[in-house]
């Protein structure tokens, strides 16, 4: 992992070949935002990145776990194709719809610049393996294993 666990926002868990993390939030939106932060910190320490560019994200998904996977997958897609490394995430709302769930949010970051950005191994995909979206007394927590 490039970044360390972050102020109760997320923590990295042991996984032999890939990366596994849990992210927390008082709302589900916040837990999803922190999951995105954790995922980018697998690749790079996001502390020194600036939120200079923005991408708006709208997603429908069949269920809540799939929505989490789709949210993170979409960010990876934009990272690779638009060449933006993200560091700030804001989800306006996660809603239950007739067909499942939907998400509207924004991701901010800066264009990849290999002369300044030091990447560790790349996150290549978000898996369904041990994927969790849970609620307890303190709020929400999610768990993700990503393929590296």
């Amino acid at each position: 992992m490039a970044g360390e666990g972050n102020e109760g926002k997320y923590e990295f868990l042991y996984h032999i070949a890939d990366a596994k993390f849990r992210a927390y939030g008082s709302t589900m939106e916040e837990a999803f935002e922190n999951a995105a932060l954790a995922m980018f910190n697998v690749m790079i320490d996001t502390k020194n990145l600036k939120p200079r560019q923005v991408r708006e994200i709208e997603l429908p998904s069949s269920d809540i776990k799939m929505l989490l996977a789709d949210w993170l997958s979409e960010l990876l897609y934009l990272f690779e194709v638009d060449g933006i490394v993200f560091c700030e995430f804001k989800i306006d709302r996660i809603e239950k719809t007739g067909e499942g769930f939907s998400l509207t949010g924004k991701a901010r970051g800066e264009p990849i610049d290999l002369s300044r950005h030091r990447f560790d191994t790349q996150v290549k995909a978000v898996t369904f393996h041990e994927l969790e979206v849970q609620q307890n007394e303190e709020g929400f927590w999610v768990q993700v294993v990503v393929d590296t």
Partner: protein
Amino acid sequence: MPEQIKDAAGIVTKVNDYTWDIPMSYKPGMRVPGRIFVSRKLLENLEHDTLEQTANVATLPGIQKYAMAMPDAHSGYGFPIGGVAAFDRNTGIISPGGVGYDINCGVRIIKTNLTVDEVRPGMKELIELLFHEIPSGVGSKSKLRASDSELTDAFLHGAKWAVESGYGVKEDIEHCEENGYMKMADPSKVSEKARSRGKPQFGTLGSGNHFLEVQYVDEVYDEEVAKVFGLHKGQVTVMVHCGSRGAGHQICDDYLKILDKATRKYGIVLPDRQLACAPAESTEGQNYFKAMACGANYAWANRQVITHWVREAFTRFFRRDADDLGMNLIYDVAHNVAKLEEHVIDGEKKTVYVHRKGATRAFPPGHPDVPAVYRNVGQPVLIPGSMGTPSFVLHGTQKAMELTFGSACHGAGRVSSRAAAKREFYGETIQKELAARGISVRATHPSIIAEEAPGVYKPSDEVVDVVHQLGIARKVVKLMPMGVAKG
């Protein structure tokens, strides 16, 4: 009374020194037993998840004989890494989880007529040149600006397209598994997203455990077969290990979602969502297979283009052309792929979808899919080591057809996580240690070296010895690294 092993949680029973079974009683829904091909020592270090995932695979419809795990097996998601399973064409399933994200991640070896003594003095400069000529690492951009129609051609015709476009010679195609492309590829089954991830990365090595290595033949185990493969002691070879990049990952991602729905549609009960699958001959199953073939072909084209650049770099460095340097492709194997193959099961010839996830095809002498030049000795089976540890060339045997659906292991297998590796090892220290042993490593930055330090993998010779002892492939030569480039 079969011997019970406590370390594998009392789960497995011993069949012989290198074969251990997970009985069908272990988990509800298992249709066949699990079978793990490891030594006792490797078994003792096997993670519980690897057994669990092997047992999960055994629950899938139409599975034949056993859900298998090769000697290098470790836990993945869905299937274990090192997993092999065959499913009946008519009653079985096809699953992206049985192939993995990096479709046709694979290995190829290019030989040279240079000797270790000729190459050693300039190794540092040579690996620096290769590092610069073959883009690698996160965010690296290809020198090749593939157009949309070129991408389609790569999806359709793989290494064959690359050679016809000037990246190599005709013999290269003959020395690839599947002759460098799977014929059922259909680019109309590949999403726009997969295309847009694949396009800029075409002609790049990638990151993680992918690498380009200059090696030499350190030991010959079988002179006769080595001669057929064109290998001899002291000879320098080049190994390329990479796959289908973002294209393959996106294809896998897209179809996991499609097959997740199909699983429910066809009423298939799964112990793990990552095993999403559909009946092999269903529309969903076939669409995945056709898209997967595009991913596989992209990877073969990618390794072919990289081979061309390796030859160019050697030509520049040694001021001799690639022909003169004897830079012929020995072979190219896929180690993440599903194939429609014929196998004899319980005395009957059957057509099955063999899934190899972190496993290498290992076909025997006489098999029509083995290139004519190697047909008398069997397919070259290429097993990469990790950075700083040896790689091996083996040859296929009839035994693999009997035991493992013609499969062997694919590498060393991790024993330690990337995060732990970075806590335990310093990239700079590893780099110095390797340099002292005559291995030049060039990476984007030192922590990449720490993540892939030799200590995070099972010793490759231990894994290969199990393969050799089982007889599912036999050792031909050992290759020692002398220069490594990685992203």
